[in-house]
């Protein structure tokens, strides 16, 4: 069941780099990350890669496999054509540190800009009461493993460095939506308008709902349909956004 695969792995750092060819054994049931590990153990001990759980739960091993943003630990080799080379490159939207490792600090900076959950006044620990149907939506968004593949693929920033300062990206717009849909979030009472914030601080208007983020999400979260479009709809009385109109049309059609 084993075969020799042709891998092309990007090696380099901030000053530049190139694809390096490797021929490496692939066994039954393996994923791309297994192959990267085999390269480390046999011929490229210093090949830089991030990984932690190897079970699709931590979101560390994000990269682009044949140009498609994916988790290396959840990409089965059996999905790829054994006759074709497998090209592994770092996420494109973030600066390279070394080999497959990128500087993802953009995401941590954006996380800090979203106002946190505001505990409701007068409700103590142990007194929270919420119905399952009311928390389901927030829970869907909290499945996010922060692999940042959606941030990497979103065309608002993928090839537009200049948009980064004003655009939080799908992951953190979804975080705003999650808090906005939390049944007990006390932001409004504290004078925080999450919908206005999404528009004015986090660049919701830049999103033109092409659903690239949803397509690459390894957790299959419907980021566009369930987070971004509803957030646009709720923000609409604050500010006119033509895409909301378009979004509601698309949603009806599906």
């Amino acid at each position: 069941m084993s075969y020799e695969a042709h891998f092309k792995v990007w090696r380099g750092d901030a000053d530049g780099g190139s694809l390096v060819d490797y021929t490496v054994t692939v066994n039954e049931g393996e994923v791309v990350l297994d192959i990267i590990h085999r390269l480390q153990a046999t011929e490229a001990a210093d090949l830089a890669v991030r990984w932690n759980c190897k079970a699709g739960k931590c979101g560390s091993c994000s990269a682009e496999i044949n140009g498609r943003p994916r988790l290396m630990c959840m990409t089965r080799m059996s999905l790829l054509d054994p006759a074709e080379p497998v090209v592994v490159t770092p996420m494109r939207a973030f600066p390279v540190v070394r080999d497959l490792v990128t500087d993802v600090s953009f995401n941590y900076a954006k996380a800090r800009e979203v106002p946190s959950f505001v505990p409701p006044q007068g409700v103590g620990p142990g007194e929270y009461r919420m119905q399952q149907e009311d928390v389901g939506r927030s829970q869907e968004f909290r499945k996010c493993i922060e692999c940042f593949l959606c941030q990497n693929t979103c065309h608002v920033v993928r090839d537009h460095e200049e948009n980064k300062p004003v655009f939080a990206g799908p992951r953190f717009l979804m975080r705003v939506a999650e808090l906005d849909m939390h049944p007990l979030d006390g932001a409004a009472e504290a004078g925080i308008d999450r919908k206005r914030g999404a528009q004015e601080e986090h660049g919701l208007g830049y999103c033109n709902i092409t659903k690239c983020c949803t397509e690459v999400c390894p957790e299959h979260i419907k980021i566009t349909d369930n987070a971004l479009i509803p957030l646009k709809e709720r923000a609409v009385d604050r500010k006119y956004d033509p895409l909301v109109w378009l979004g509601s049309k698309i949603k009806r059609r599906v």
Partner: protein
Amino acid sequence: MSRTAREAWDVVVVGAGGAGLRAAVEARERGMRCAVICKSLFGKAHTVMAEGGIAASMGNVNEGDNWQVHFRDTMRGGKFLNHWRMAELHAREAPERVWELETWGAVFDRTRDGKISQRNFGGHEYPRLAHVGDRTGLELIRTLQQKIVSLQQEDHRETGDYESRLKVFQEYTVTRLLKDGERIAGVFGYARESGRFFAIEAPSVVLATGGIGKSFKVTSNSWEYTGDGHALALLAGASLINMEFVQFHPTGMVWPPSVKGILVTESVRGDGGVLRNSDGRRFMFDYVPDVFKEKYAESEAEGDRWYQDPDNNRRPPELLPRDEVARAINSEVKAGRGSPHGGVFLDVSTRLPAEDIKRKLPSMHHQFKELADVDITAEPMEVGPTCHYVMGGVDVDPDTAAAVGVPGLFAAGEVAGGMHGSNRLGGNSLSDLLVFGRRAGLYAAEHAASFPGAGRPVVSEADLEAAEAEALRPFGAEGGDPAVSEGPAENPYALHQELQQAMNDLVGIIRKGPEMEEALRRLTELRGRSRRAGVEGHRQFNPGWHLALDLRNMLLVSECVARAALERTESRGGHTRDDHPAMDRRWRRLNLVCRLNGDSTEPGADPLLGRVRLERREMPPIRDDLLALFDKEELVKYLTDEELTS
């Protein structure tokens, strides 16, 4: 002259999983400036992989639950080797720690009346685990991460700097604790991205580095679990207890080979899944040990009724504590009744409707579909034991989490020992992280506050230079240091694989004296070769170098496990001796304590004795009011006659 950059903080927390982050929140809220050292990116720690839930006796699903029942279950699960005071504090404080998470934004699954839902788990008398589907660890880590961010936002509003009082050093690894005399003075390590060294001076250091599973070949643990905190504590003069107790989770994936060991949550059984052998028999009914006979169902019919009517039926034996289930699976496979890939069958497909499975166990559904082409709503899973958790850890004061013998050092979570005795119940880990993470942060803050300015411990130049030299050794490894071990440079990956194989084969789930002696011989040899572990390239994000440094820790910790396991001539919890199969009440009173020999080169020393020294120590007697929570008939099974009469 050292060129290592120095910073000064009040409290340094090493580790950014559940215990570390909870400690950091506490230290910061007590007014201390707190630095968190995070081996990976922030939010990726191993806690993220916890699936089933957080055990806390809130009584939301069954009002009969309270802290005393939780305490009892915990002691039974650990076969009474738990430090009773830790088990008491844990059971008392867990509900508060869970409720507090809701005020920080956690969104748990709900009961019909809107409270936090609680699920059944092995060894817990009542439904007790607060959960979010089967991704509870992710919820815990994200909530704590977001709480840290909210504190940073407060600091930003006040000081203009997010990191003025609470800073996370992402992708930093600590390789040495630094001391000033007997007291802790700070930490030394490297930043992965740049490869540069750093030192943080602080009067208080909290270890929250998790476990040691990466020393074993088949494990559910992530790459960070290399026993760093265990080894750092040893090297700083602290001691480890209970290292012979390693938990093999009964249900890890067994196929395909590349995913062997990945966890299959106990919730599968808590929600109705059953274990079968190749004959289709629910074999767990054949493996209920005497100490648990009265608590578990005798027939499949009774076990099945329990899910709906727990007051009038006993639980199915699939929900025995993990050590019992893991041993049973091992026996079935050895007897030739295993599944095609060397496990047994775990079936939920014939027990619950497909929609319920997808709702209650979404990650498992996803994991099996993507990695093994198995649809768990239509067919059984194949599972087998996987190294999951170490009960042993730093010897701490139960109330303050202070490491015994090293002022200023604290430990919480998996790296701390005592709480779980010889076997941890599922769900008791996440609650442990929160209860003792908070306590460690609190007492670390108090300790730091006792040094208002002058008089703080100081890091010495000589210690920094020694730490630098140690960390750089892999780059000059060719030929090695002939005084230590002569020979060519060694590949750190190959050494790691040999270590994992040795621990798996010789100090695994079922142990034998001669095999463990063989393991100690191999560890001695590997330790010699690991001094010559060499790497290519430069210091910037170089995984070969990182592994070469982690090897020191894995080897030290493995030696503790093997040495303690060889010494304990009984079977209890996570320690099973083929040559000493019975539990011995006399051993219940004893902890095995590991320390490092001060001088490993003393003349005439047996090289096999290595550097780890083992001592026996009596456990403190259990407080009377806690003993009174058990029936005499039950206590007789665990305590010696002498203990019972005194």
